[in-house]
Structures are given as C-alpha cells and as structure tokens.
C-alpha cells in the first residue's frame, strides 16, 4: 500500500514538470482599449431564441425611398453646374436649388442620426434627435425663403461673398 502511495506522489511531481498548469489570463481581453465613447446602456430584449422583428411594410421605405434620394441627388448635379456655367440663376431656379439642397441635407442628417443613435440603446435620444432635425429643417427652409425674397438669393449671395 505504501509503495503505491509514494509512487503516486512521485508521478504527480513528474507530471507537474511535464505539463505545467496553464496561466490564467489577467483579464478577459488584453488588447488595448480604444473606445471612442463609454459603453452605452445594455438593453436585453427577450431571449436569444426570439426571431428578428420584421419591419412593417411601408410604401415610402425601401426602393421608393432609395429612388427618391437618387432623384434629389441627380437633380442637384445640373443645379450645381448651372450657376458656374450661366454666372447666376433665375430666382425660381435658385429657390429650387435651395429647397433641393435642404432636402438632400435633411436626408443626409437623417442617415447620420439613424447610424449613430441606435434605437435599441437610445430610443428617447433618437426621437429627440429626429424631432430636432425636423424643426431645424423647417427653420432653415423659412430662413432660406426669407433670404430668397428679401436678399439676393443663394447663388448670387455666394458669388458676392466669393468676389468680396
């Protein structure tokens, strides 16, 4: 009996040299932290087995939405070239340029809001940002309307500043 026990002990000592116990990592991950912002609120909705929610079909989303964005962008191309070619724009064309620019900007800002404020984490902030953008756009449209009617208009105004 004692023979087995001493042999077992020596075997255990030998085994320790053969296979050293793996070192436990100091932390979960050891790479450098490069967080831009602190971690947001951790929202746990349902379980892992829930299917992804299917968005309700909406005719203004999807391809129509995409096509509309392209139409606005394509429209901006001649409206941008025209003042360089003609030297200035007719007040109505100038107003169309202003409205198209605001529409294009609004869509662009919307994309930024949706990209950078995830709905799951910050639903209230997202809503606030959307409404802030909507009100800003209305205010800008009013401001540009005032500028078009009481002042010289966008293209003429930019030209004036550029030549100043």
């Amino acid at each position, binding site marked *: 009996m004692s023979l087995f026990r001493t042999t077992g002990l*020596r*075997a255990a000592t030998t*085994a320790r040299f053969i296979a050293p116990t793996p070192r436990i990592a100091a932390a979960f991950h050891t790479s450098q932290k490069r967080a831009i912002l602190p971690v947001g609120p951790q929202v746990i909705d349902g379980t892992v087995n829930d299917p992804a929610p299917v968005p309700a079909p909406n005719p203004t989303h999807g391809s129509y939405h995409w096509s509309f964005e*392209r139409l606005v962008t394509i429209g901006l191309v001649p409206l941008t070239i025209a003042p360089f070619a003609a030297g200035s724009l007719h007040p109505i064309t100038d107003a169309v340029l202003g409205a198209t*620019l605001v529409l294009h900007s609004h869509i662009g800002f919307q994309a930024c809001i949706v990209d950078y404020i995830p709905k799951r984490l910050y639903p209230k902030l997202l809503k606030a940002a959307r409404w802030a953008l909507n009100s800003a756009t209305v205010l800008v449209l009013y*401001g540009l309307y005032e*500028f078009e009617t009481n002042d010289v208009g966008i293209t003429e105004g930019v030209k004036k500043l550029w030549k*100043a």
Partner: protein
Amino acid sequence: MSLSRTAFRAASQLSHRQPAAASFLLPRLQTRSAASTTPTTAAEAHSLLVSQRQKRPIAPHLSIYQPQLTWYMSSANRITGVLLSGTVYLFGISYAVAPWLGLHLESATIAAAVAALPVAVKLAIKATFATPFAFHCFNGVRHLIWDTAKELTIKGVYRTGYVVLASSAFAVTYLTFFA
C-alpha cells in the same frame, strides 16, 4: 512505461479488484461542490448580466484598420457632407432668427466684412469651403455612377477615386485662386 502510468494502472486495478482497499481511503476524502450558488431574484440576475455586458470588449476602433483609399474616401464623403449641410443649416437658422436676435446677416453686410479681411485669410476661407464642396460634388457623381452598377470593382473604385481626387484638387485650386 513511465512511472506515472504504472502508478495509474496499479491504482485502477486496486479500485477494481480490491474494493476493501479503496474504501480504506474513503474517510480521508473531502467533498465540496464545484461552485457555490446563491439564490438571486430575476432583477438581480438581470443587473448582473448588464454589469457583465459592460465589461465585454468593444468593437475595434477605426485606427486599427489599414488606411485605404476606399474607406477613407467613404468617410470623407460623409464628413464633407455634414460640414456643407451644417453650413447651410447654420446660415439658414441664423438668417431665420436674425431679426429677433438683432443679427445682421444681409449679404451686403457679410460681403463688406469679408472684403475687410487680409488676402491670405480670404484665400484660406475660400479653400476651407471649396475643398469639401468640390470633393462632395465629385464623389457624389462617383456614387451616382456606382448606383448604375458601373465601376463597382476594386479597380473601378480606385480608378474613379483617383479621378475624384484629381478633379477636386483642380477645382479647389481654381475656386481658391482664380474664381
């Protein structure tokens, strides 16, 4: 045959064939459950999960990626767009609220203020506005070309990318110094 294997086999033989000898060892064994558990409520478990999730690694920062024309120009497209649109919005809102705040944003007033600046400052301001404008215009056309499913290869992306950069450089030079 190593020493440890000998011992192992001997021990297994012992436990199989000599149960009396094995039971001789039993009083010395201590038993202990592998992990201690404490009862928690659902809310406590949830808050534990939340605190654990906040310690998870975050997706890598942009700076770990190799700088490439593809994604640099993509980022620049959004940044220049936000700058240009931000300028339009800033001016539009300022002009809208100017009467209430007593601001003078009439084109004649601003033009007079700009005219009083030194030439170097004027050129710097022109370059500051012309650069995002030219880049976003040309890159926007590049995007419209992509939307027709043309130039959508790595080669096409680089070719059109260089065209956009060259055109932008040319346009900025023209708008800053000659317009």
